[in-house]
């Protein structure tokens, strides 16, 4: 279901109950209004009836007064005539005064008008008969007077003499005063007020006054009067106009007062409040729906644009999303979240692109590397192959033959080193390289290497200078030589003939710092950051010549880091590049500093080894070297011996039967006094983790079995 439908339902759901309640109230109000109207109209009708009754009573009173004049009682009719005539003059409504015997014989007629009715018919007249027989006053219905050409009614009163009815006196009257009474009510033009006689004929009527008199009342009114003497009904006038009619019939006269209230006017007046209410409700509903529509437009449009944005984010397109999208907090929150997500997606996309291009770059580097590898391996092979040919065909001992042999040796060594470096880089990368660390003096290692290179002519026409301070480190001599050789090789390769290469070694804080600087062209800025990554080359892409494999510096970095050291490269202020290798000085050298103690025999050595053959062999070797040796077969006795004999060096097998060698080392370290004990670990496992564990436990050197005499001698001699 659409949002619009929900909002419309909400609006309707709120308004409809209110509307229903309002309608109920309206209907109730209408009913009350109608009731108030009805009561008001009935009261008016009743008041009018009282007035009509009073008017008629006036006629009756006047006639009764006339009936009681003495002359009439005495039968002095002549005199009575004069009295009657004067009475007639004072009553403008009265047309005539007549006198008859109770049996209907006319005796006196002031106007001398002939009664058109046949003789004796008077006795049958309803009102006359009533008065003649009961002796009570009566009022007749409306009747047409053909001589006066007027509608009139008669008031009759008995003339009683000595208890008997002697005459019936009658006054014929026109209903003018009653008409005036009705007209004095000032009804609205669409109201009609009527007075009916006992036979339901109009005595007076506000509508069509002249013509209506004497005419029968409307059928609906007659029907209502037949049922009840007073009430309220909805019916039609004689003209057919729909009216509400309150009516009241007088008990004394039998005459009726009724009012016709135009149903149209009445209903419209009554319903006006209802309509006002309905209009109000409709307006409210309209307003609510309009509101719902507007909110829908704002929210729905905002949601639609958010949906578009979400789609775009999914496709990885960038989206410009305003948080002003709609003045709705929740939507703004959504828009903000969506924008954040778009930013994140974009960032991710950028990272992916970057990673992709890095991968492509790595792929290109790999291709270059393979081409270079081929070149680097084939060239020495070509030289060797040619040299082998020369050896075969040249005279033995000739200059060519000797030269060819040297070439074969040199190129073979070169290739071996190349392949070795390659494998070493791979080993470092895979974490499979193990170091054979021992205390050694870096200066000594470098001096030895430089001497060899100089002797073999590898320095060529370069000016190589050494400035080395002694620096003792705990390192793998072969690997350190590899580091120095690679740096030196690079310096020579990238420095033109006649250029200068400086190698310096210094102690700075707790580090040995080796610097190899050259007077070459320096390192291009774009390469400085990536210099130590494998396969990155110092030469421009495309000119493959003599650049090497690009693994030398990667190897240097890997080896330095394996020794807990570091390597960095900068361009010197005066041109050329400076490579700096930092290695941690060994603790022993920190204590001894530059006071190089001459290394002779005569140390106290504690040997803890459970394997009898190994122990005996090592014992013999160490004693041969001039040391004083004590031995133990397990950790416990070893520790006891150490406490007793205070050795300079302890050589400990890690796999002892009781306490393991690591624990022995920890205990020895924790109980040693000011005199520092040198600890050498012996183990069959030479992995990097084993070494780290041994060093952590306090060993200075970690030796992997089998240990040669030479190596053991070097290690022991290396301690200060």
């Amino acid at each position, binding site marked *: 279901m659409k949002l619009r439908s929900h909002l419309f339902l909400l609006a309707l759901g709120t308004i409809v109950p209110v509307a229903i309640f309002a309608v109920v109230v309206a209907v109730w109000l209408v009913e009350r209004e109608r009731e108030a109207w009805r009561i008001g109209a009935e009261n008016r009708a009743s008041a009018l009836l009282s007035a009509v009754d009073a008017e008629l009573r006036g006629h009756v009173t006047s006639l009764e007064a006339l009936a009681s004049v003495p002359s009439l009682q005495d039968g002095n009719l002549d005199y009575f005539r004069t009295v009657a005539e004067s009475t007639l003059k004072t009553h403008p409504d009265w047309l005539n005064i007549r006198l008859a015997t109770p049996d209907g014989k006319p005796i006196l007629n002031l106007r001398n008008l002939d009664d058109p009715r046949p003789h004796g018919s008077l006795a049958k007249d309803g009102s006359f008969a009533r008065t003649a027989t009961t002796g009570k006053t009566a009022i007749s219905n409306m009747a047409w007077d053909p001589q006066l050409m007027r509608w009139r009614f008669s008031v009759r009163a008995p003339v009683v003499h000595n208890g008997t009815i002697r005459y019936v006196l009658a006054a014929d009257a026109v209903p003018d005063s009653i008409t005036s009474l009705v007209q004095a009510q000032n009804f609205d033009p669409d109201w009609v007020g009527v007075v009916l006689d006992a036979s339901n004929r109009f005595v007076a009527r506000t509508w069509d006054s002249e013509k209506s008199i004497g005419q029968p009342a409307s059928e609906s009114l007659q029907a209502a009067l037949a049922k009840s003497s007073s009430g309220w009904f909805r019916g039609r006038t004689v003209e057919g106009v729909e009216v509400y009619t309150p009516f009241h019939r007088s008990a004394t006269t039998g005459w009726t007062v009724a009012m016709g209230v135009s149903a149209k006017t009445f209903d419209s007046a009554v319903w006006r409040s209802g309509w006002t209410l309905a209009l109000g409700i409709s307006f409210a509903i309209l307003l609510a729906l309009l509101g719902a529509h507007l909110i829908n437009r704002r929210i729905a449009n905002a949601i639609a644009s958010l949906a578009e944005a979400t789609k775009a984010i999914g496709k990885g397109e960038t989206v410009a999303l305003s948080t002003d999208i709609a003045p709705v907090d929740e939507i703004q929150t959504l828009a903000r979240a969506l924008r954040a997500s778009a930013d994140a997606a974009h960032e991710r996309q950028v990272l992916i692109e970057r990673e992709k291009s890095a991968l492509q770059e790595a792929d290109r580097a790999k*291709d270059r590397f393979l081409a270079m590898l*081929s070149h680097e391996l084939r060239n020495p092979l070509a030289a060797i192959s040619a040299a082998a040919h*020369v050896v075969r065909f040249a005279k033995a001992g000739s200059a060519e033959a000797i030269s060819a042999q040297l070439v074969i040796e040199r*190129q073979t060594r070169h290739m071996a080193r190349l392949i070795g470096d390659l494998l070493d880089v791979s080993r470092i990368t895979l974490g499979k390289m193990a170091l054979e660390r021992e205390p050694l003096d870096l200066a000594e290692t470098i001096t030895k290497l430089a001497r060899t290179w100089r002797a073999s002519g590898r320095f060529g026409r370069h000016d190589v200078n050494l400035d080395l301070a002694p620096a003792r480190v705990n390192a793998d001599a072969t690997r350190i030589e590899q580091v120095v050789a690679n740096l030196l090789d690079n310096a020579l390769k990238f420095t033109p003939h006649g250029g200068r290469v400086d190698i310096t070694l210094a102690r700075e804080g707790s580090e040995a710092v080796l610097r190899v600087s050259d007077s070459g062209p320096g390192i291009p800025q774009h390469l400085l950051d990536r210099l130590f990554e494998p396969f990155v080359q110092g030469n421009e892409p495309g000119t493959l010549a003599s650049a090497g494999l690009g693994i030398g510096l990667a190897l240097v970095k890997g080896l330095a880091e394996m020794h807990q050291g570091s390597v960095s490269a900068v361009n010197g202020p005066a041109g050329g590049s400076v490579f700096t290798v930092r290695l941690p000085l060994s603790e022993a050298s920190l204590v001894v500093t530059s006071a190089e103690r001459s290394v002779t025999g005569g140390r106290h050595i504690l040997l803890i080894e459970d394997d009898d053959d190994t122990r005996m062999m090592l014992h013999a070797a160490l004693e041969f070297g001039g040391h004083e040796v004590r031995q133990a077969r397990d950790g416990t006795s070893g520790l006891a011996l150490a406490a007793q004999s205070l050795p300079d060096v302890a050589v400990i097998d890690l796999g002892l039967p009781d306490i393991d060698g690591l624990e022995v080392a920890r205990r020895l370290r924790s109980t040693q006094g000011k005199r520092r004990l040198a600890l050498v670990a012996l183990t069959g496992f030479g992995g990097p983790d084993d070494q780290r564990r041994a060093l952590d436990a306090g060993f200075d050197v970690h030796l992997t079995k089998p240990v040669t005499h030479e190596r053991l001698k070097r290690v022991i001699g290396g301690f200060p």
Partner: protein
Amino acid sequence: MSTRILLVDDDADFRAMLCSALELAGYSVEVARNGRAALARQRHSPADILITDIFMPESDGFEAIDGFRRNFPSTKIVAISGGAPVMKANYLDAAGLIGVDAALQKPFEMEELLRVLKSIQ
């Protein structure tokens, strides 16, 4: 008069060995370290056959081949290189495209080179 060969390679050991081997095979051999030096030497004492490496610093084998084709069109050329067909352009193929008489990949048997030299004379 023996056939004169000009040998161009940046690797001194290889240069020296190939030079000895060719002399043992009866050729008269001159050597140069790069393409430019080869062209200079050719002007000074022209050779019948040029044997050149492709990848050399400063002035590579393509430069030598181009220069020889232009200035010494009668000189036969043998290209030798250790480049592997890993990259999209195989350098020996490229040498073939610019017109050398023969191409060899390092390392090669001496007998093969001698056979090639005989065949192009």
